[in-house]
Each structure stands twice: as C-alpha cells, then as structure tokens.
C-alpha cells in the first residue's frame, strides 16, 4: 500500500472506523462500521456523506473554453448557461468513451469533474487544447446525498435550498468558499461540494453532527449508483463502448447531431452520429435476475439455456433498496426490449434474467 495516495481527510475516515482499501491509486473508505447494506439504505431514507476527493477537479479558462471543450466531447457546452452543469464524456476516434464527467459553467470558467483513474489522461487531453487547463489542488470533494441532504446542508447555508437539480453556485459555508452543485451519483437528490482543504474537516464534521447524516463508503456508493442505473466508467462504459450503445444519447444535444448548427466536430463523430441515425447493434440494459443469486460483472448472458453467449454483465450485485439482485450489461439490440428473457451463467448454471427498465429505483432529483 506504500505507493497509494491518501486523500486529505484520510485521518477523519480512520477515526470514523472506515475500512480503507486501494481504489484508483488512493486509499479510500469502502465502508464504515454501519456496513454497506445499512449505509445504502440510510442514504436512500436520510442522508449520506461521501468523500470523493480522489476525483479530478479541472478548471478551463478563457473565452474559447466552451468551444475548445466541444472538440473533445459530443455535448453542447457553448449552450450551457452560467450556473448550470451537465453530464458529458470524452470520446475517441472509434466512438468509444475515454471517460465520463460533469461540466459546470461557473461564469468566467468551466469546472470539470472527472474520474480518479482517468484524471491524468484527461488533464493531458485537455492540455492539448489551446487554453489553460488547471488541475485544482488543495480542495476536497464531498458529496451529500439523500432526501435529507437539502435540510442538512441548508442548516449551514440556507441558500442551497433554492438550487435545482444540476444548478451550480459558489456558496459560503462556515466561512469556506465552496463550489456547490445540486447533483451526485446515487440516484438521490443531493449536493457535491468542492471545499478548500483547510476547511474540509470542519465542514465534514458539521454535516456528520446532523443526526440524519452518516458517513458512507464506496461500497454503498457502488450499489446506490447501480440501482440508479448510472454507469461506472471502466465497467459499464469504456473505450470499447459508444454513447449510443450505452444508452447515453440523451447527453448528446441536438446541436451536436446531424442537422444541428454544430453537428459533429468531436472524436468518433462518424460512428456516433451514424449510430444516432440508425441505432447501435448492442445496447446497455437493466437486468433483473430471478431468484436471489447476484449476477456480477463478467457473467455471460445467453439467449437460451444451452446457446452461446450473446453478451455480458458489466455491473451487478445485490440491490439493498430493491431487496434482490440487480445488474446492467450489454445485449444485442434485438434482446434489449423490456421484458425480454435471457439467461446468465452463474457457477456453471444458466439462471433466468429479465431485461428491465432503468433505473431500478425512481430518481429523487429536485428538478
């Protein structure tokens, strides 16, 4: 573990009883004494505090920042209003996804949050653009998620209650200049808060002092986002999957599609625009195994009890809120309709699985 990096609030997590595990080059809290199951259910019913400071925070400055970023992502960045955020992804020449991210328009700059495992590569990619890309140092990133998140954060800064889903704002919280977005990755309402290191512990402790807020680890973060139907980079989406295959075409606005005023102009435009017109040969789907046995990443999917593999599970496990196994995976488009029955092979046995609508639990976003 010697070459693993530590996040700024490492000691706080250890004091809270976290089990620390290697993740994306960092020692990260995977669970606290409450355990993954209770942490998950607590976040869905009250509020959970997540430390996601391993993720990359990047600032893009200059009048051309939005136009330049559009050269790397098939997203309408120019049309993103000030004070708003949207989901996006870097694509490659084949139309695959290099990483996914959140892009916020913070007035005189764009603020981009990317995955920890990809952040160096993303930063290099952004540095090739003709603008100053700055990796933000000295700030933690905390996520407060769940139906109780608004009340808990509003006790410290009442103005956050006025923010809608995907709004971003600079908010003074306990004297700290925080960059707050009303978003997250659990399928629940909540906030992501970029806070200076010096004030991060105070903020985390103030939030945890609220009786509705518990610290939540990466284990529950994974089951929450899976039930929320949200993709995990490197698993459900990667360099080999296109946004259309992944069902993320909603993130490609009309202006970047065929017929739009800024159609194309991003890596892999031919493949992606072509698939937007005529569909992809395979699709990411929600999968609900019958019975209680979880189907995890790598489980092969079959059309029949004795036929060859037609696809595989990319994320899967037990969904505490569903109270049963849930999974996502890729199947040929002819098997992607809701209600289709396929089979997943677990320990040599073919078990029935139904293709279902995502998300598994309704989103709690405050739109």
């Amino acid at each position, binding site marked *: 573990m010697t070459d693993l990096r530590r996040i700024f609030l490492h000691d706080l997590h250890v004091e809270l009883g976290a089990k620390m595990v290697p993740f994306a080059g960092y020692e990260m809290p995977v669970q606290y004494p409450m*355990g*993954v*199951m209770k942490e998950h259910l607590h976040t869905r019913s009250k509020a959970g505090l997540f430390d996601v400071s391993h993720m990359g925070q990047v600032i893009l400055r200059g009048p051309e920042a939005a136009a330049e970023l559009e050269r790397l992502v098939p997203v309408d960045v120019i049309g993103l209003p000030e004070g708003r955020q949207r989901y996006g992804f870097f694509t490659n020449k084949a139309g695959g996804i290099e990483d996914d991210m959140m892009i916020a328009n913070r007035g005189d700059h764009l603020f981009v949050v990317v995955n920890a495992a990809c952040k160096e590569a993303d930063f290099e990619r952004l540095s090739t653009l003709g603008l100053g890309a700055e990796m933000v140092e000295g700030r933690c990133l905390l996520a407060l998620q769940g139906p109780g998140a608004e009340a808990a954060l509003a006790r410290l800064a009442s103005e956050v209650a006025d923010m809608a889903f995907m709004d971003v704002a600079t908010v003074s919280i306990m004297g700290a200049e925080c960059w707050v977005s009303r978003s997250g990755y659990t399928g629940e309402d909540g906030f992501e808060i970029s806070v200076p290191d010096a004030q991060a512990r105070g903020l985390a402790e103030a939030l945890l002092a609220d009786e509705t807020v518990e610290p939540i680890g990466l284990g529950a973060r994974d089951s929450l986002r899976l039930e929320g139907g949200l993709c995990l980079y490197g698993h459900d989406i990667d360099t080999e999957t296109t946004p259309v295959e992944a069902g993320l075409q909603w993130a490609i606005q009309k202006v970047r599609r065929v017929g739009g005023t800024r159609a194309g102009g991003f890596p892999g435009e031919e493949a992606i625009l072509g698939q937007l017109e005529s569909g992809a040969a395979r699709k990411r789907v929600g999968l609900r195994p019958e019975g209680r*046995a*979880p189907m995890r990443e790598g489980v092969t999917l079959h059309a029949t009890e004795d036929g060859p593999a037609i696809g595989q599970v990319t994320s899967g496990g037990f969904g505490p809120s569903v109270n049963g*196994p849930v999974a996502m995976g890729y199947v040929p488009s002819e098997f992607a309709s809701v209600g289709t029955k396929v089979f997943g092979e677990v320990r040599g046995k073919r078990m029935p699985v139904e293709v279902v609508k995502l998300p598994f639990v309704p989103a709690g976003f405050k739109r």
Partner: protein
Amino acid sequence: MKYTEEHEWLDVDGDIVTVGITAHAAEQLGDVVFVELPEEGAEVSKDDEIVVIESVKAASDILAPLDGEITEVNSALVEDPGKVNEDPEGDAWFFKMKVSDMSPMDDYMDEAAYKDFIS
C-alpha cells in the same frame, strides 16, 4: 469446537458435525445476501464446495470439512441470509453431516489455535 483454515467452525456430537462460519469470517464477508445449501441426503467428500455464500462484496464457498452425508440443512438462511451476520456462531449454522471418517478432525484447530490464526 474445532476450526478450519477456511474459517468454518465444527461442532462435534458423536458422529454428527454441525458446520457454520466464524464471526471473524462473517465480518470479513460483510452483509450476506444469498445462501445456497446442499441437498439433505447428499454424499459429500472433504473439500467439496457445498455451500455458496454471496455478500454485498463477493461470492465465496464453504467446503465440506470431512467425508460424509448431509443430514440437515438450515433452510432459514436461504429465506433470511442476513442471519449469517447476526448470529454466525449460533442460529446461523449451515448444515449438519454424519461423518464417515473423523480422522481429519485431528488436523483442525482448537479455539486458541484459531484465534492465533486470525490475529
């Protein structure tokens, strides 16, 4: 009580052995969400994988500790896998078996040796 390196506890009563997993193992596994048990009456050999346990984190097995016949399984665990975390060394036993050859029992650890093993 005897213990295996696979973190099973073995409670011996004549030629009947009751098998479960230790509190240490249950804690390491995390919340158990799925249990698959052998058939009652099944003949098993030492080291056969006869129970599947899935937790929120991963899948693991319980091996038959000895040769013999499964005489009883704890079906309540299939309905409520969380019992394994609540009472691993009591109510949450997995199966009982009638053992045909007790001699491997000598190789298993006593409580002091097991405590040493996990420390």
